[in-house]
């Protein structure tokens, strides 16, 4: 249960940032995750008047505002044509349409949740985070930073030459993933982003060039085995560590074969 004393629609990022420096104030995303916790919030800071609810596409990049919803990601033609539907695929089992109309990109990326399908898919691409004070930094760097009181303004997906495939294992549709997996060939290099291990997603690059050249059954298996050996897993209510490691082997290989059109 949360209580809120005051609600403010910030009229500038500076105003939102100033308010957010007080530990008892909180930025509101879709509020879905926040509501599950217990907290007594002094001022809830809404970014809804700041025009951060759009996805802008240029020749070079997609610029995705913090208040864009997961449903916007799912239905955006440009983003899904660039990713061959991987972004829609990543979010489409997150609870339900009504939920995805509320949950924001800002809250999802800021939260750096272990189970996050959203973080997992964007880590597989050439993605950056724009922070109000921290500037533009790679998502991978942001993912490993400690939470502070900055504001996530938008994420930027550069249109690097990239093919990406997403898959997740769920015990049942709309539940949290047991394992989340996105594999891409980005600027000619294969990488796997593996989340819900259950720790937050990390990138595993094909540094030994196991999958160099065209994808085959053999090199897909070799890269999958490499990722499974290097990605730490743990057990929780959704699955054991051994099961997750097994899933990594299977899902990374499947993604590789799909990437290779096999």
């Amino acid at each position, binding site marked *: 249960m*949360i*209580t*809120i*004393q*005051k*609600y403010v629609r910030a009229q500038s990022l500076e105003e939102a940032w100033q308010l957010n420096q007080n530990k008892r104030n909180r930025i*509101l995303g*879709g*509020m*879905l995750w926040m*509501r*599950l916790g217990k907290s007594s919030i002094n001022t*809830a800071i*809404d970014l*809804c008047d700041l025009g951060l609810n759009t996805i802008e596409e240029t020749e070079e990049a997609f610029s995705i505002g913090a208040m864009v919803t997961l*449903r916007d990601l799912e239905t955006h033609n440009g983003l899904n044509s660039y990713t061959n539907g991987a972004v829609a695929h990543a979010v*489409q*089992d997150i*609870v*339900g*349409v*009504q*939920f995805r*109309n*509320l949950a924001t990109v800002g809250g999802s990326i800021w939260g750096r949740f272990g189970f996050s399908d959203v973080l997992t898919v964007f880590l597989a691409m050439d993605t950056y985070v724009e922070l109000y004070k921290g500037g533009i930094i790679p998502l991978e760097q942001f993912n490993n930073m400690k939470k502070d009181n900055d504001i996530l303004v938008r994420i930027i997906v550069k249109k690097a030459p990239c093919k990406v495939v997403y898959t997740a294992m769920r015990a049942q*549709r*709309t539940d949290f993933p047991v394992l989340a997996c996105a594999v891409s060939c980005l600027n000619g290099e294969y990488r796997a982003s593996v989340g819900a291990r259950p720790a937050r997603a990390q990138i595993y690059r094909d540094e030994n060039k196991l999958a160099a050249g065209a994808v085959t059954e053999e090199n897909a298996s070799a890269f999958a085995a490499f990722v499974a050996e290097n990605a730490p897993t743990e057990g929780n209510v959704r699955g054991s560590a051994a099961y997750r490691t097994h899933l990594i082997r299977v899902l990374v290989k499947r993604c590789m074969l799909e990437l290779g059109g096999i």
Partner: protein
Amino acid sequence: MEIKLKLNGKAILASVEADTVLLDFLRDHGCLSIKRGCDTSNCGLCTVLMDGKPILSCSTLAVRADGHEIYTLEGLQAEAEDFVGFIADQGADQCGFCNPGYVMNTIALLRENPDPTDEEILAFLAGNLCRCSGYDGQLRGIRNYLNSRKA
């Protein structure tokens, strides 16, 4: 705080606390079709349309409705009547508690996609949980309704 919104087509001016959720606000304004199920954004029982989009009123602050248009089942009876009989004919509901949320989301689905496949129906309604049925009756009812429109 003062908020101004349109509820089921009527302009409303009201005073709310910063942490009042839309669900409570709407029930206080006579919209008793809206049910609190899980209160953790999982079940879809509290579905309403905000600016035409289905959202969860249990997890939305009433102040966030300021300047927006909200529809509940009370305001969409005619649109619902088109298909609810087909669902009832299947005996799909048992306790019926999930029904208003289900109907609201079906309205949203049919506005967005007037001729969905079974898979599209299941995907769109996946966020509406029913503790009594196995969803088959609801699916058959919607399918029969869609078929009747084509006949």
